[in-house]
C-alpha cells in the first residue's frame, strides 16, 4: 500500500522539475554559460590529461634558458629556473582541480547534513549550530583559512582542508534555509503521515530538493576555493616551491616583474579565466535549474 501511494510523492520530490531535457534546453540558450562550460571543459581536460598535454616536465630546470620570453618551442616562455611556463600551468590546472574538488567535498559532506539537521530539528541544536556558523562568518573572506593554516601549518594539504572548512558555513546556511521552507510542505507532511521515519524524510524527500542549490553553490564554491588556495600560495602559506600551483608560481615570479613580465601575466590569467569559467557556469546552471533563482 505504502509503495503505491509513495511513488507519486517520490516523483514530486525530483530536484529538476521539468526534467533534464528542459534544464539542458535552458542552459544551451545561455551564451555566457556556454563560454563558461567551454572554459571549464578545457580546464578539466588540462587537469586530467596533464602528462599527455604538457610539452615538458614541470620540474625540469634549464638554467641556460631562465626567464626566456615566449617562443615557438615554449609558447608562454620560461620561468626563473628555465622551466616551461605552459607546462607548469597545465599541471597547475590539475592541482587546482584537486583543490577545488576536495574543498567542495569537505564543505558538502559537513555543511549539508549539518544544515539539514539544524533546519529540520530546530531548537537548541539549531541555535548552537547557528552560533558556531556566526562565529565562522565573523572572519572575513580568506582570514579563517589563514587562521587554520596558522594552526595546521603551511602546505598544500593543509590549504585544502582550510579552504574546505571555510566553505562549510555557506552550505549549512543554504541547506538550512531550504529545509526550513521544505519541512512544512505538503509532500513532507504526507510522507510523515504515511509513517516515514525522520531519516527517510530527510534523505528521500527533503535533501533531493536541495540538490539544485547545492549544485549551483558547489560550482561557485570551486571558483572560490581555487581563488583562496591561490591567494594562500601567493602569501607563501600554501603550496610550496617547486610545486606548480598557480598562486605559488605568481609568488616566486613577482620578483621578476620588471625583467620578465610574462612570468607574472600567465599564471594570473590562468586563475582569472578558470574562476570566470566557474562563475559563468554556476550562474547559467542556476538559471537553467530554476529560473526563479535568477538574480
Amino acid at each position, binding site marked *: 500500500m505504502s509503495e503505491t501511494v509513495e511513488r507519486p510523492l517520490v516523483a514530486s520530490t525530483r530536484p529538476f522539475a521539468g526534467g533534464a531535457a528542459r534544464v539542458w534546453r535552458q542552459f544551451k540558450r545561455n551564451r555566457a554559460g556556454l563560454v563558461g562550460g567551454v572554459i571549464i571543459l578545457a580546464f578539466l581536460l588540462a587537469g586530467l590529461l596533464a602528462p599527455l598535454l604538457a610539452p615538458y616536465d614541470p620540474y625540469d630546470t634549464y638554467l641556460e634558458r631562465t626567464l626566456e620570453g615566449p617562443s615557438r618551442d615554449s609558447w608562454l616562455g620560461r620561468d626563473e629556473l628555465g622551466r616551461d611556463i605552459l607546462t607548469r600551468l597545465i599541471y597547475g590546472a590539475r592541482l587546482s582541480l584537486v583543490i577545488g574538488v576536495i574543498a567542495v567535498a569537505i564543505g558538502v559532506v559537513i555543511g549539508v547534513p549539518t544544515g539539514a539537521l539544524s533546519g529540520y530539528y530546530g531548537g537548541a541544536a539549531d541555535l548552537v549550530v547557528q*552560533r*558556531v556558523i*556566526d*562565529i565562522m562568518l*565573523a*572572519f*572575513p*573572506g*580568506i*582570514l579563517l583559512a*589563514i*587562521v587554520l*593554516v*596558522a*594552526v*595546521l*601549518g*603551511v602546505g598544500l594539504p593543509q590549504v585544502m582542508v582550510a579552504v574546505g572548512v571555510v566553505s562549510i558555513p555557506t552550505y549549512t546556511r543554504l541547506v538550512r534555509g531550504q529545509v526550513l521552507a521544505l519541512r512544512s510542505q505538503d509532500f513532507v507532511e504526507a510522507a510523515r503521515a504515511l509513517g516515514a521515519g525522520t531519516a527517510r524524510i530527510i534523505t528521500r524527500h527533503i535533501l533531493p530538493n536541495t540538490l539544485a542549490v547545492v549544485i549551483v553553490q558547489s560550482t561557485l564554491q570551486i*571558483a572560490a576555493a581555487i*581563488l583562496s588556495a*591561490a*591567494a594562500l600560495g*601567493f*602569501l*607563501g*602559506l600554501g603550496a610550496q616551491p617547486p610545486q606548480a600551483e598557480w*598562486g605559488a608560481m*605568481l609568488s616566486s615570479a*613577482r620578483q621578476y*616583474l*620588471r625583467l620578465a*613580465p610574462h612570468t*607574472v*601575466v600567465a*599564471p*594570473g590569467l590562468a*586563475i*582569472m*579565466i578558470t*574562476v*570566470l569559467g566557474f*562563475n*559563468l557556469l554556476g550562474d547559467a546552471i542556476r538559471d537553467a535549474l530554476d529560473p526563479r533563482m535568477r*538574480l
Partner: protein
Amino acid sequence: MWAYIAKRLLLTIPVLIGVSFVVFVMVRIIPGDPAQIIAGEAATREFVEELRRELGLDRPIVVQFGDFLARLLRGDLGRSIRSRIPVVEDLKVRIPNTVILAAAGMVVATSLGVLAGIVSAVRPYSLLDTAVMLLALAGLSMPVFWSGLMLILLFAVMLGWLPAVGTGSWAHLILPAVTLGLTSAAIIARMTRSSMLEVLRSDYIRTARAKGLAEATVVNRHALRNALIPVITVVGLQTGNLLSGAVLTESVFAWPGVGRLMVEGIQTRDYPIVQAAVLVVALTFVIVNLVVDVLYAVVDPRIRYE
C-alpha cells in the same frame, strides 16, 4: 528601534566571545607541543619553558581562557616572541595604515562602481553597457594579488607614473587603493546597474520624463536617489571583502598594515602577533557589521520588523 538595536547588540556578544575563543584556541591546538613548535627546534629548554608560562600553557584551559579574556579587556595582547616588544606597540603603527588603505579602497570601489553602474544602466544593452559589464565580470574573477601586480607593471614599471611599493606619500596610496577597490567596484557596479534599471522603468520616472524634465535631471534627481538604497546595502557588505583583500594587497605593495603583520607572523611562527592581528581584523568586521545593520534599521524601518 531601541529594542532592535539592543537585540542586535546582545547577539553580537556571543560572537565576540566566540571569535576571542577561536583566536585563543589557535595556539593550543597546534599539533605536538605548541611551546616547542612556536619556540623553534633550536630553542633552549629554558626558553621553551618560559614561553609555556608566558602563554599560560601550563595551566588548566578554563583558567587560561578567563585570563586571556581579562588581559584582552585590559588591552594586553602579549609580547612578540621574536622581538619581545608588546604586540600592542606594533598594532598602534599598523592599524592606522590598514584603516587608510581600506578607506581609500572603499572610496575607489564606491565611486568607480556607482559611476560604471549608472553609465551601464542609462544605455542598457548598448556597446558601452556590454563593455562595462564584461569589465565588471573580469574584475570579479581577478585575484586581488594579481591585479595589484598588473597595476604595478603598467603604472610603475612601464609608465613610471607611480611608485610600485612602500608608503610615504599620497602617490603610494593610489595603486594599493585601486587594487583593493576593484573587486568591490565590480560588485557595486552590477548592483547599481540592476537597481537603476528597475527604477528607470517605474511610473514616477515616466511621469518625470512626461513633464519634460531634462534626462540628466531625471537620472540624477529622481532615479539615482532611489536606486542607491540597495547599493548602500552592498557597499556595507563589502567591508569584509575589503578587510580580507587588505591582507593580500598589503603583501603585494609591502604596505605596513595589520594584514602584512599577520602574514609575517605566520611565516615566523610568532603566534601572539598572529592572534592579535586576527583578533583586530575579525572584531573590526563584527563591529562594522553591527554598525551597518543598525544604520539600515535607521534608514529603512521595515527591517526592524523582520
